[in-house]
């Protein structure tokens, strides 16, 4: 809900250096966020983006608007919350990154972790998660793998300079994972995680078997990202992937980089 009664246009008339665009994620046209970014960049302002829609669905358009602007577009907060995923890829040079793999959705990871630890059914843990506020009333965005896919599409776009949107991703969620399957995996030293993979070829999101001793088997709402590089091996970064403070810390990381 807008605070105050000034129109949106007045905001863009005001004196500012950076637009922080943090409206809720919308798909396809990615509006109204896309128009907000466009207005700021076309008047040579910087934009720090926390909304996944525009960089997942209209990356090339944004890139060409940013290319014609004195302003810079940054979007660290769109992937992995407080984990500096995109800054790390930027620092080591996207050209030398071969693929990125990770656990990028805290809600589905919370559900899988608790199902395995307490031998509880999917529907039971989902309703717990909803009560705790870890899952939304309509959980499909998280448990259906869409949120993970959007983040991976953004990474694939960064690696290849665009060309991907959500409809290009192969996505499978965790709704059919049962506690007997988690039990069985456990006996073989494995667990199940919703894994997202981003490469220059595309995006794949699906539940996968992960050895319990591996870094990738993070617990609860933790996220992890593994960046495979041509010369530096695999870099693992873990941390809180969602929430107000982690998102704000990612926004401040972008602001700091604009100052430098």
């Amino acid at each position: 809900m807008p605070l105050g009664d000034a129109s949106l246009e007045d905001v863009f008339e005001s004196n500012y250096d950076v637009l922080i665009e943090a409206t809720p994620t919308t798909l396809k046209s990615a509006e109204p966020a896309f128009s907000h970014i466009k207005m700021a960049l076309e008047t040579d302002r910087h934009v720090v983006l926390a909304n996944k829609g525009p960089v997942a669905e209209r990356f090339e358009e944004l890139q060409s608007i940013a290319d014609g602007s004195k302003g810079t577009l940054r979007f660290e907060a769109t992937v992995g919350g407080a984990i500096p995923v995109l800054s790390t890829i930027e620092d080591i040079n996207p050209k030398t990154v071969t693929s990125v793999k990770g656990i990028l959705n805290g809600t589905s990871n919370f559900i899988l972790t608790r199902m395995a630890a307490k031998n509880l059914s999917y529907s039971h843990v989902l309703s717990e998660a909803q009560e705790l506020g870890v899952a939304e009333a309509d959980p499909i965005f998280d448990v259906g793998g869409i949120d993970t896919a959007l983040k991976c599409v953004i990474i694939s776009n960064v690696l290849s300079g665009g060309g991907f949107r959500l409809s290009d991703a192969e996505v499978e969620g965790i709704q059919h994972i049962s506690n007997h399957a988690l039990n069985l995996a456990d006996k073989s030293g494995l667990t199940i995680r919703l894994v997202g993979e981003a490469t220059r070829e595309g995006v794949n999101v699906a539940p996968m078997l992960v050895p319990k001793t591996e870094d990738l088997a993070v617990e609860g709402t933790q996220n992890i990202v593994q960046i495979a590089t041509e010369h530096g091996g695999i870099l693992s970064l873990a941390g809180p992937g969602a929430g107000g403070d982690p998102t704000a810390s990612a926004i401040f990381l972008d602001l700091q980089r604009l100052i430098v």
Partner: protein
Amino acid sequence: MGNKLRNSPRAYIVRLELADRPGELLRVLEPISSSGGNLLSIFHERGDITPRGKIPVEIDLECSPDQFESILSTYSDLDIHVTQSGEELYEGELIVLLIGDAISNNLSSVIASIDASGSVAVIESSVNRSIESPTEASSILRLAIKEGDQKQAIDSVRSIVSGYGLHFMTTTDNGVSQ
């Protein structure tokens, strides 16, 4: 593949030619079970008769080198014609987890279809049933890749099990990132 103990079990392949008469196949399998070997799969092509009127059979098994020697010498005692034998050079191993109703009512048929694909052999399987609803179950299969690379094997198994309405997943180390 890591180092193997000298006499640890490994995968072998035996190609035989059998006479077209009842009981022949059983005669060939008996030495495998009596030596303690583990039968992985059998291809018995009745339609593909050799010029000498025999039926070619391919057997995949797992046993120690000593057990394998004893199986071959039994075949020679029994006058069973072995055309080819040796340690099978598997390309690698694959672990898959399957979830769905076909596990409780049709697992043997699922495994037979996977074996018949020729690209992988099922080495081991375990099953877990749901306590709440007994028709629901899951299974972990350990597979040996016989032909092609890991990606081809994954695609082949995925398409077979999806025909049974099963959900399929595999381990992350088969992925793109090294």
